[in-house]
């Protein structure tokens, strides 16, 4: 690639001579066509599972939302247990369901909880390993053993009882008549099914998977959980002017020189004036590098003046445009083509395409973008077509960012390719997202995913991680 062919002129760039920053943007240019895949909705429980239940001891109603214990219980292995038809969804902050005890029957031995797929369907939730349950007759909490521990009040006829999973705190929690009874650490991995059990004659329980309004205010509970996390985060202190410094280096990195000048001028007149610690001095010199040239080129590209951008580059940094088959030249040529289509100069576009783009057909890495560009010609209203993304502002921005990175890479002091590609701000955001993803994947992908895009486009502060 271009840097390779030029390492004689740029012998200082030993570290990056084998990497072309342009390639990175080539991928971005294509990626911008897809607006990012939203996480698909997970299926949630809707009814009771009549196939895998301890038939014989209980009867599930035709709507599959209530159970009744019809026989007389004799021992601990004739519990009437029934699971939900789906496991509790995990990619959220909280999962919750409720039961209403219509009739506590002979002994009120009703249980509510969560069990895994292999649960023995003749036992109370909580009695066996990998299960957890809150029992009505003694108010005890059982998790994984036949012996329960003190937890909450007993519950009986006319009580509404809820079971939930808080994925942020990794806890099970239970409620009675709309109030939280307590919570217990969730140490069971894998999918968990909402489970109810009845164990004495005439016990009858209705279950609500959210079809009806819950007695417990789940939304409020979630809001409070978010608030708790938010408070913990807000208490963390930052070094003074950390945000200011990052914005400044961002403007420097991308060559937003006019903004930078206004920003610095304003920073000096605030009360008190903002000082950026001296320790940044060295790095800074590197991003001040060719600032004005980078600004000018960005402006030209953003205005669609690609020929002028080429001219400037030939003057200032000839090696960047020396190899006409480099990804940088390619992106510039594509953009020129796009600009011609934008102004409706289709004939000229065709001519330009034959001259400058045709050679990229069939070249791995370049192919898709060329095809998309040429496809613009096929539509009467290209901006409404599937390749309309090419006509958006963001496409110009990517080309401008490519040229910006290429110029940064000519700096003899530049240490590695990352310095040219990513601003400090971007590196921090990447680290944030990687940390959130990693932690979540270690938790079996449970809990809310962190979406930077969503955080930035919502009125609320950052939540979920």
């Amino acid at each position, binding site marked *: 690639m271009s840097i390779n062919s030029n390492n004689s002129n740029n012998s200082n760039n030993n570290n990056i001579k084998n990497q072309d920053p342009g390639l990175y943007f080539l991928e971005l240019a294509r990626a911008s066509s897809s607006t990012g895949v939203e996480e698909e909705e997970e299926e949630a429980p809707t009814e009771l599972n009549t196939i895998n239940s301890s038939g014989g001891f209980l009867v599930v109603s035709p709507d599959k939302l209530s159970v009744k214990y019809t026989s007389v219980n004799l021992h601990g292995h004739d519990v009437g247990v029934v699971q939900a038809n789906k496991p509790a969804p995990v990619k959220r902050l909280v999962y919750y369901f409720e039961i209403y005890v219509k009739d506590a029957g002979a002994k009120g031995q009703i249980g509510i909880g969560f069990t895994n797929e292999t649960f023995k369907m003749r036992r109370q939730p909580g009695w066996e390993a990998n299960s957890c349950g809150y029992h009505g007759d003694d108010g005890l909490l059982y998790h994984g053993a036949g012996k329960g521990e003190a937890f909450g009040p007993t519950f009986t006829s006319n009580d509404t009882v809820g079971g939930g999973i808080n994925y942020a705190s990794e806890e099970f929690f239970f409620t009675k008549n709309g109030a939280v009874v307590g919570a217990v650490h969730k140490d069971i991995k894998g999918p968990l099914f909402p489970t109810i059990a009845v164990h004495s004659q005439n016990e009858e329980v209705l279950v609500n998977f959210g079809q009806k309004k819950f007695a417990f205010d789940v939304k409020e509970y979630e809001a409070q959980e978010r608030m708790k996390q938010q408070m913990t985060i807000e208490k963390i202190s*930052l070094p003074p002017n950390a945000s200011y410094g990052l*914005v400044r280096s961002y403007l420097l990195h991308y060559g937003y020189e006019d903004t930078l000048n206004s920003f610095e001028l304003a920073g000096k007149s605030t*009360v008190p004036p903002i000082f950026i610690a001296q320790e940044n001095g060295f790095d800074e010199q590197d991003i001040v590098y060719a600032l004005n040239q980078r600004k000018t080129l960005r402006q030209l590209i953003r205005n669609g003046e690609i020929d002028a951008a080429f001219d400037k580059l030939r003057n200032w940094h000839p090696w960047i445009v020396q190899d006409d088959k480099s990804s940088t030249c390619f992106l510039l040529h594509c953009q020129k083509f796009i600009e011609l289509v934008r102004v409706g100069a289709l004939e000229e576009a065709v001519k330009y395409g034959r001259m400058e783009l045709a050679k990229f057909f069939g070249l791995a890495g370049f192919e898709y973008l060329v095809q998309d560009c040429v496809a613009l010609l096929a539509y009467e209203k290209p901006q409404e077509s599937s390749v309309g993304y090419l006509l958006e502002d*963001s496409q110009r*921005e990517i080309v401008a960012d490519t040229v910006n990175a290429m110029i940064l890479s000519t700096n003899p002091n530049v240490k590695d390719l990352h310095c040219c590609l990513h601003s400090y701000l971007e590196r*921090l955001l990447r680290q944030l997202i990687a940390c959130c*993803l990693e932690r979540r994947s270690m938790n079996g992908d449970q809990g809310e995913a962190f979406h930077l895009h969503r955080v930035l486009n919502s009125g609320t502060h950052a939540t979920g991680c």
Partner: protein
Amino acid sequence: MSLFWIVIRQLAEIEAMATSKKVITREEWEKKLNDVKIRKEDMNKLVMNFLVTEGYVEAAEKFRMESGTEPDIDLATITDRMAVKKAVQCGNVEDAIEKVNDLNPEILDTNPQLFFHLQQQRLIELIRNGKVEEALEFAQEELAPRGEENQTFLEELERTVALLAFEDVSNCPVGDLLDISQRLKTASEVNAAILTSQSHEKDPKLPSLLKMLIWAQNQLDEKAAYPRINNLSTAALEDPAV
């Protein structure tokens, strides 16, 4: 590698294994970082949100032109907001109150605490300028009635009036009220109230995200050893402790 370092490294590995912490090498971590996709528009939005919320109106204007990012608030309102903030910072509280009311009279009407703090700041400025009589009159007429309605206000008022009891205020226990930080505190309170009245968040998103980064790293520390970023201003990855 010297034997010393080999031993140290082995010990660290054993420790990591004992606490069953997953170790993520720099190479593995960098791969994960590279897989993260961040949209340029989102970063631009984050920067614009900072400029707008912190009141860098000219920079916001320039940034809109240079990056094509649309601000999430009418830029004209920033100028007004910053004028109020500046007035408080410079001690022209009366002027600030007038400006807030010009902007939206509801802000002070619905915010008794903010109004009290502005009046308190006004009293502080009178005392600072040695206008003792005027200060006393102001305290009795404007602030005392509010103190009767609210215990916290009353305590604050008493603290402020105490400034008059000292000849050398620089050495008195309530001297902090005369500090520049008191002005800044009041100024940022007004700033936040104006933003809220414009249905805009009162704080920029960037500092929250930075705090979140620190928090997320701490959370992950419990489960894994991985390259951290400890210095926000250089964003340099530091190798895991193993």
